[in-house]
Each structure stands twice: as structure tokens, then as C-alpha cells.
């Protein structure tokens, strides 16, 4: 970090406009060689846009990009790759139906072909950075963590010297995050430069050498992670206090809203995806389900929602055995649903907001009148939700796709809450949502809980899980392996249970 050496990456006065939006305005960024540089900012602040510019995915309307002091112009990612810049996208850029090898060598076939030489090279990379990749695995069979390592392998395979990671930790458990940070440290030692985006400010402070804060498309300043607190960072980002998910006063009542008895869901192979799960959610209780992604949480949610047939067991809502009910009936009778993947299950991206407000509540007031949809009432109610839940969009006729992820999520939360559910299934309710929106969503969940709502909370964010839950259930290979008291467990301990490092007990159950 000598003063004289030019920065590895320097962005000067970058401006990028999209139709109707200025995503980046006059951005300045300096990243020194061999450092881990974090970029933080609200949802929609323009972080991804900036990184896409640096990676040649689009060209800036104004401004310059300098690498090691020399100005470069990238016409395509190919140019960026050639200049040693690699990027791991927020949404993985992987072809599911191709193998790890094919995904890695794609576009870089010149280096080692697509055959044995390439396989050797990938194994080499995988071993030296402990990525643990099998070249011939189909990507669709891999979990999130592995997918991310494939992404990293892709970049390393191309000999990148500057690595961009867009929200790499959003979907990882602490152990995986630690592994990732271990990998980053390894990269740093090799002299690679890492730029990474995250909403988890503690994490940022832990791993970054320096931080740039972006607000509303423009740089508001840089911060030193050693001297800046998370609170200060958050204030720079939004001018608001850093929220915490803490809820310590218990509101748990006696009446159960949901009982799962021996719920089993068939899996792909011989092993069931959900294995004999029994648990109870009471009124006013948040039951957190912890688990590394792919351990049956998604299937469990599907089973509760009636989206997947049960191989065995019963689901009881209140006093009703709902095992044979359709998804629609379940929703009508008081189950709210915030799905894990809002683009896939929560929204009609190409439909206007008011239709998205109707979605999932087609048969309920104020959306429906008899067999007809009440368009007027639905529009009006959408406007109410937008107001009450601070959904920032031009109006109820805006297409959902035009909203940022956080705003989409707030609309979903508002929609589900509006139906006054008895039970809420919330899968990753704040994933990829900025701190401001996060606190709004947390507050909403807390308020609803206080009013007697039972909540099943699934989250990869362990702080959120521990902070919000009254009871924690840990899932491993489809089965509940531990029931924990969130008041007495640290994220690290929890991570141990999730990965199976600590054997399952019912430690300090409430």
C-alpha cells in the first residue's frame, strides 16, 4: 500500500443512466492493489450497476475506468476478463444443466480446451484454494455454497487479478462465510484485489481493508473499517439507525396455530427431503428454522403450504387437519406466505403492482367480488399498502419488474399482512434487502407477533434468526436435529449444529 503506486482500480466520475433512472452519478472509487475493498449502500443505491460497468457489461455514460493507472475501455466482459477483472454476480451466472467444468471453461476454452487439460487445471485451482469442486458434477445438483465456489473458480480460471463479488455472503451460513473469507485472505496473499458488496455491515468491518459508501447512485465517502462502527456506516448509508432484530419479551401464548406431526416429504433419491418433522407453533410465537440451504427447509415450507404432497404425517392448523387441503384453502384460512425466491414464487414480474397485490389473495376481499376481480378496490388497496409499507414506486400500475428487490419484498410483506393471517411462513424475509427495509420488515414481524400471529421463520441470516425467534429448530438432512433457545445460543454455536459439527440435543429448550 505504498502511496506512490497507482490504485489497482480507479473509477472517475462514473455516470450511468437507465431509462427513467440515474443508477450511478459521478461515482469515485479507488481500490489499492492487494486489498479487500467493500462497497456498501442501500438497495438500489447503484452498487451492482457500478460493478457491471467495471466488468464491461455496459458502458458508462460518463467517466473513466483506470486499471493500474492506465485508462481502459471495456466493450464487453471479454475485454474486462482480458484485463484481469473477474466478477461473481449477485444472482449466480451459472448454467444449471451444464457441468462444473463446462461452466468454468465456458468463454475461456482457448486456455486449456474443454477436455482433460481443463479438468486438470480446475482440479488444481480447486485444490490450491480449497474449493472442493468436482469438475463433472452438474451444477443443478450443487448447493449455494458450491455454486459460489464455481463462480470463484470461473474467475480464477481466467487468471483474474481483480475479483468483484456482489453480495457473496447473502446466502451463506457463518461457517461458509468464514470459508469464503478464508479464501479471500488466500487470494489477497497472492496479490489479488477483491471488491465486494454486502449488506452485512459487521461482516464488512471484519474482512474489508477499506470501505466505500454509496447512496442514491453517488459516493458519499469512504470509511476505515477499524475505526468506523456499523452504526456509523449505516448512518452514512441511509441516515438512519442500524436496526437490530432483537425481541426479548416473549409474547408466546398457549394456543397452537400450527402443528406438524411426523411430516415426511419424499426426496429425489432414497432419502426423504423432509424426514419425520414434528413441531408446534403457538400464537405469538416465532419458530425459527435454521439449516444450511438444501437441508429440507424449502420442502418443509412447500409441505406446509400444500405445494408438495406428504409421504407421511399430518399438518394441523388451529384445530383443523389441513393435510388434504389445497394451497388456496390454506391461504384462505389464514396462512400467509413470504416465499424464499420472490421472483419465482412471490411475484408476477411482468404484471402491474396491483395484480401482484391480488396474487395469492384472489378470492379474498377487497380483491374479489363474487367470481370477479374488483380491479378498482385492488388498486386502491395497493396504494394503501404502498403508503403504509413504504413501497417506493410510481403507482399501482407500475410493473413489478421495475421495483428494486427491497421494494418488491415490502410489497409482498404488506400484501401478506393485509390478509390478517393466523400463521405466517416467512422464508428469508430480508434476503438482499437493505438495512432500512430490513428494519421495517423486522418491525412488522414483531408487531404481528405481538398481536398473536404465529410465524415460521426461515433465514440464512443467523443474527436475524436468533434475534427474532422464540424457539429455534435446526434442520439437517431433512430432520430436526436440535431445538435451541435463541436466548442462549451464539451464531457460531448455531452454525455448528447446522453443519452437524455439534451433535443434536435439545439444549436449553424453553
Amino acid at each position, binding site marked *: 500500500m505504498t502511496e506512490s503506486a497507482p490504485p489497482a482500480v480507479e473509477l472517475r466520475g462514473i455516470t450511468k*443512466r*437507465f*431509462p*427513467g*433512472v*440515474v*443508477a450511478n*452519478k459521478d461515482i469515485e472509487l479507488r481500490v489499492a492493489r492487494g486489498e479487500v475493498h467493500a462497497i456498501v449502500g442501500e438497495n*438500489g443505491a447503484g452498487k451492482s450497476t457500478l460493478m457491471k460497468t467495471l466488468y464491461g457489461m455496459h458502458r458508462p455514460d460518463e467517466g473513466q475506468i483506470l486499471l493500474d493507472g492506465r485508462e481502459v475501455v471495456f466493450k464487453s466482459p471479454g475485454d474486462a476478463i482480458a484485463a484481469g477483472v473477474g466478477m461473481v454476480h449477485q444472482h449466480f451466472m451459472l448454467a444449471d444443466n451444464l457441468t462444473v467444468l463446462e461452466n468454468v471453461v465456458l468463454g475461456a476454452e482457448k486456455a486449456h480446451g474443454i477436455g482433460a487439460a481443463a479438468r486438470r487445471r480446475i482440479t488444481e485451482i480447486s485444490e490450491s484454494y480449497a474449493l472442493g469442486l468436482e469438475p463433472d458434477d452438474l451444477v443443478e445438483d450443487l448447493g449455494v455454497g458450491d455454486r459460489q465456489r464455481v463462480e470463484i473458480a470461473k474467475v480464477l480460471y481466467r487468471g483474474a487479478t481483480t475479483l468483484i463479488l456482489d453480495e457473496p455472503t447473502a446466502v451463506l451460513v457463518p461457517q461458509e462465510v468464514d470459508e469464503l473469507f478464508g479464501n479471500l485472505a488466500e487470494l489477497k496473499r497472492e496479490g489479488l484485489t477483491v471488491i465486494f458488496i454486502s449488506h452485512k455491515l459487521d461482516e464488512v468491518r471484519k474482512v474489508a481493508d477499506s470501505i466505500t459508501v454509496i447512496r*442514491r*447512485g453517488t459516493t458519499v465517502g469512504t470509511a476505515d473499517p477499524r475505526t468506523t462502527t456499523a452504526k456509523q456506516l449505516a448512518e452514512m448509508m441511509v441516515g438512519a439507525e442500524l436496526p437490530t432484530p432483537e425481541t426479548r419479551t416473549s409474547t408466546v401464548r398457549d394456543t397452537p396455530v400450527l402443528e406438524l406431526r411426523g411430516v415426511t416429504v419424499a426426496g429425489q433419491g432414497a432419502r426423504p427431503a423432509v424426514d419425520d418433522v414434528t413441531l408446534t407453533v403457538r400464537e405469538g410465537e416465532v419458530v425459527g428454522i435454521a439449516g444450511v440451504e438444501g437441508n429440507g427447509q424449502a420442502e418443509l415450507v412447500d409441505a406446509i*403450504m400444500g*405445494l408438495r*404432497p406428504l409421504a407421511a404425517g399430518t399438518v394441523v392448523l388451529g384445530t383443523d387437519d389441513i393435510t388434504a387441503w*389445497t*394451497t*388456496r*384453502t*390454506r*391461504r*384462505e384460512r389464514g396462512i400467509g*406466505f413470504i*416465499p424464499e425466491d420472490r421472483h*419465482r*414464487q*412471490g*411475484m*408476477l*414480474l*411482468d*404484471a*402491474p403492482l396491483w*395484480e401482484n397485490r*391480488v*396474487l*395469492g*389473495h*384472489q*378470492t379474498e376481499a377487497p380483491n*374479489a367480488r363474487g*367470481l*370477479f*376481480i374488483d*380491479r378498482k378496490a385492488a388498486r386502491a388497496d395497493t396504494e394503501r399498502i404502498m403508503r403504509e409499507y413504504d413501497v*417506493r*414506486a*410510481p*403507482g399501482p*400500475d*407500475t*410493473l413489478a*419488474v*421495475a*421495483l*428494486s428487490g427491497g421494494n418488491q419484498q415490502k410489497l409482498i410483506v404488506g400484501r401478506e399482512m393485509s390478509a390478517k393471517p393466523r400463521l405466517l411462513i416467512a422464508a428469508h424475509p430480508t434476503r438482499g434487502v437493505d438495512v432500512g427495509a430490513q428494519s421495517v420488515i423486522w418491525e412488522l414481524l414483531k408487531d404481528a407477533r405481538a398481536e398473536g400471529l404465529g410465524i415460521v421463520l426461515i433465514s440464512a441470516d443467523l443474527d436475524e434468526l436468533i434475534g427474532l425467534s422464540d424457539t429455534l429448530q435446526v434442520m439437517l438432512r431433512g430432520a430436526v436435529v436440535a431445538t435451541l433457545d435463541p436466548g442462549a445460543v451464539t451464531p457460531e454455536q448455531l452454525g455448528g449444529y447446522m453443519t452437524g459439527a455439534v451433535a443434536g440435543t435439545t439444549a436449553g429448550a424453553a
Partner: protein
Amino acid sequence: MSVLRRTGQALLAPLLAVVIALVISGAVMAAIGVDPLRALSVMTDFGETPSQQVTAIVVVLNRAVPLFLAGLAVAVAFRMGLFNIGVEGQYRMATVVAAGVGASVSLPGPLHVLLIIVVAMGMAAIWAGIVGVLKVTRGVSEVISSIMLNFIALGLASFLLTGPLRGSEPGASIVTTKEIPESGWFPSLNGVFGALGLADPPRQLYGFLLVAVVVGVVVAVLLKRTRFGFDLRATGLSASAASASGVDAKRMVITTMLISGAIAGLIGLPDLLGADHNYGTQFTSGLGFLGIAIALLGRNNPIGIAVAAVLFAFLDRASVPLQIANIPSSVVTIIQGTIVLAVVIANEVARRIARRQAESGTAVAPPAAGDGSSGEPDAGPPSGPALSNASGATGRTDPMGSAS
């Protein structure tokens, strides 16, 4: 002001399409030494006498009615992401069976017609239902099964016609079913011309036009206003989101195919009930495929489909006067092809222009500014996202199929 701009943008695409189609067709005609203007005047010349003009209109409308129904049948399925390429076979089966049943019963007028309509809709719905059932229970792609069922319908109709339902004399050169008695005919609308003070044309304007209009309105209301229509469109936009919202995807596939098929069953009836009164070897085929083009042209929207059907019918009629004016009638087919292409290309171009306009117009910070105008350009989806989904669903064995 903004209303003006909005209507301007809404009209931009169709206008552009017309211009593109005219330019391309004009170029083609010029290339073969035909004066495009003369061709245009021949095409739009509906004759000198009032009777000829009204006849021309009748010819166009009579042709448009089945095309409209075909487009509608395809569009309903398209809207939920199903590609019903099997309309062809559906209406063929419907028509032959309805003709057979219609000829073998005697009922008072309206009941007789009603029976024929119900039989036709039912038969086609069953034929389309097979596609739906195979898709949800066996995971068979609707594209492949409906292509196959088209051929099967062709053979089966031929078997029925030449076997059990044969009504024509052994020597007759056209094999037909028995003629439907007069109580089963659909009265023509020619009385309307008299009422309007127009000449009574020698050709009968199909009374089935009214049925088509009613069906069009019902479909429009069904799709736009009802809960069912919402579920249907939601499934088309995102099958996964729809099922998470409580739509029973399997049932939806079957119901939609049944509705699409039932509409397809009507396609052959204008001719059957209004003119031929029997089904024969010369019965008009190919309407199912044209229906796909019509649906696409009309952007899966009943009004658009009506316009598209009339346009195609108009072009079809023009092929005769073109030949008489010594202009190759294949020009018409080329125009039809270019128009379909032009419309969709125009939609794209118009969308881009609108975006660019918005871009230069609004240059302020993130979309937080909620003044309503900045988001406008996105409000008009290009050719209907349902379409890209429809093709996306082509042959996909989705989770529904795997559950069994």
C-alpha cells in the same frame, strides 16, 4: 398532455407495423414489376354496384368469423403459457361429429342448433382435453401431443366420413355426411342489410357472427375481470408464482385446454350451419394454423384478434381481384407473412423508442420520485409476456408432470 402521450405511445406500434408491412410488400411488388398503388387500389376495390360492395363485405366477414374463433381458441391457451397447436384437429373432429349428430336428429329449430353447437364444443374440448391430461399426468409436451392429435384427427375424421357417417351417394365425387335438416341451420343476417338500407347481397352473411361476438365478449370478460381469468394469466406469467398463490396448476392446464378446445369447436360451425350443412372432403382446413397467426397478430387480446381476423379475411378476398388484374395472388400470402412479422418487430421498435424518450425526459435520481410519469414507458409490455412464456413452456415437462 400525458393522456395524449400515452395514447400516442399505444398507437405507435400498430401504426409502425402498418408502415413496415406496406413498405416491405410494396418493395416486393415493385420488384416483380407490379405498381403497388395499383395493387392497393385493386385490393380495396369492392366493386361498382352496391350489391357487389355488400357482397365483398359479406365475403370478408364470413371469412373473418372462423378466423376470429380460431385466434381466440389459440389465445386463451397462450394466455396461460400453453401452446395449443392442436386447434386444427380439434375443430376438425368437432365439425365432423357435430355434422353427424346434427343430421341424425330432428329437433325444433333453436334446440337443434344448440345441440349441434354443444356437441361441437364438447367434442373439441375432449380432443383438447386429451392434450391437457397427457401433459399433467404423463408429462407429454402439449406441442408434440397436439401435433400428433392433429394428424390423428385427420385420419379419424376421414374414417368417420367415409365410414359410419357417410351420407353422400356412392358415386358422388365429394364425400359428405348426411345433410343437416333445415331446423339445424343457422339463419343468415341478410335481413340486417335491408334494415340498414343496403343492397341485399347474393351471399349469406353468417348468423354465426353473433355467436362469435358473444364468445369474444365472454372470453374478454373471463380473462380480464374474473378470478379464473386472473389465475389463468398468472399461470401464464409465472407458473411457479401462480401455484404458490394457490392456483392448482394441473387443474388449470386441463381447464384451459378444455376452454380453448370448446372455442375451437366453434370454428367449423359458421360454414357448417350457415352454408354447407354437411361435413365433406372439401371442408376448409388449415384454420387452426391460421388461428395461431391471428392470435399472435392480435396480441392475444380479443379485440386485437377481431381486427387481425378481419385484416386476414380482407387480404384473402383480395387474392381474387388481384388475379383478375393479373397480379400474382401469392402477393397476398407474402403480405400476410410480413404483417405478422412487421407487427411484432414494430412492437419491439416502439418499445425502444418509448424507453429512449423516457430516458431523455426524466433525468432525476432513483425511482423514489413517485410522480407517476417516470415509470410509464414500462407499462406497455411488448408482445405480451405470456408469449415468451408460451414458447418457454414448449415441451417443458414441468413439475406437474413429475408428481405422479
